[in-house]
């Protein structure tokens, strides 16, 4: 019965195996893949868009690279782990480099938030030069460092969706594969964003 049902359902498939698709080797496929492989890999949330999509909003944020803190607070794998593991100890250090001011954003959605491997809520306790220090008030996922340091050598104004990190203010931050996610996936702690974090990661 089950096999028969599966076969009957398969006959409804508008893209069954006899319907041709475009081969990965055609010139247009190759062009698509080449275009994709020429795209920078370090400044996007994980479900990043293609540049041609109109629905992607143009972001003004700079990329922020998450680096290993002095003393090894963050153990990033080099070859394939989806979830970096953070151990207690020295502060995390975030480098915010304004290396792609034309980065584009996907539309915010909890579904995109959920798989992000690092998420915390923190309060800015110090702003000094190009460096901002946050105390981690609550880790939703991926770590338990008590402090996070963000270095933004090219200007904090450009960091995280065009809002500044201000002393005493609280922020919700996510990071994926070494990058702070901006475009709404990190931002000032609002009830709405906190609710989204709680939905995505649990409280």
């Amino acid at each position, binding site marked *: 019965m089950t096999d028969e*049902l599966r076969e009957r359902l398969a*006959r*409804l498939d*508008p893209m069954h195996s006899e319907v041709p698709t475009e081969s990965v080797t055609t010139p247009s*496929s190759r062009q*698509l893949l080449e275009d994709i492989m020429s795209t920078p890999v370090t400044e996007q949330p*994980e479900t990043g868009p293609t540049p041609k999509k109109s629905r992607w909003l143009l972001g003004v944020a700079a990329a922020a690279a998450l680096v290993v803190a002095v003393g090894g607070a963050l153990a990033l794998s080099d070859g394939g782990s989806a979830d970096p593991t953070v151990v207690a100890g020295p502060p995390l250090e975030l480098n915010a480099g304004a290396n792609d001011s034309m980065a584009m954003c996907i539309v915010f*959605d909890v579904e995109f938030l959920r798989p992000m491997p690092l998420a915390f809520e923190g309060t800015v306790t110090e702003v000094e030069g190009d460096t901002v220090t946050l105390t981690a008030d609550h880790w939703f996922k991926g770590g338990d460092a008590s402090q996070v340091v963000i270095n933004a050598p090219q200007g904090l104004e450009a960091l995280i969706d065009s809002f500044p990190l201000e002393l005493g203010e609280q922020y919700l931050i996510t990071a994926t594969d070494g990058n702070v996610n901006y475009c709404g996936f990190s931002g000032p702690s609002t009830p709405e964003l906190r609710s989204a974090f709680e939905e995505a990661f649990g409280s």
Partner: protein
Amino acid sequence: MSSDFSRRQRFEAIAAEVYDPLQRYLRRRASPDDAGDLLGDVLLTIWRRVDDVPGESPLPWCYSVARRTLSNHRRGIRRRLRLVERLESEPPSALLLDPAKALEDDELAAALSTLPAADQEIIRLWAWEQLEPREIAEILGSTANAVSLRLSRAKKKLSESMSRQNPPESGHKGDRHAEEQRR
């Protein structure tokens, strides 16, 4: 992070494996034009997260990316439809099942269209993508046991829906009214 060369090599290998099934997945669920754009989106995510793609069996992981991308795309469609006040007149399942309507097994397609969207999708993943519960679970972020249960229930609902349309004791549509009266 991989070197540029090894990243390209890895991506090329994954693309070769998933290019065809991803096209089919997206064209089953979106218009041909949209499916083309969505394919680019999905591949771009794979490129950016190539180190996260499982080595042995990358397809379910790639389907899960496609699913999220498609979900976002549909939300955009629904927003646009709301703007022109058309959403109410368009049942959600119509968007999902339109390609099937042109095909011959109308009764089964009609029965499938009566199921909740989530049940329809789990049925499609099983019958069209030919995935097993553990693979579906990876896509949906669930467990194999939970998927097995949901799939079993969805199949039961599908059978019940078909029975209502075409009662087994007669197989004639003329008896449908009597069947409905009995219920």
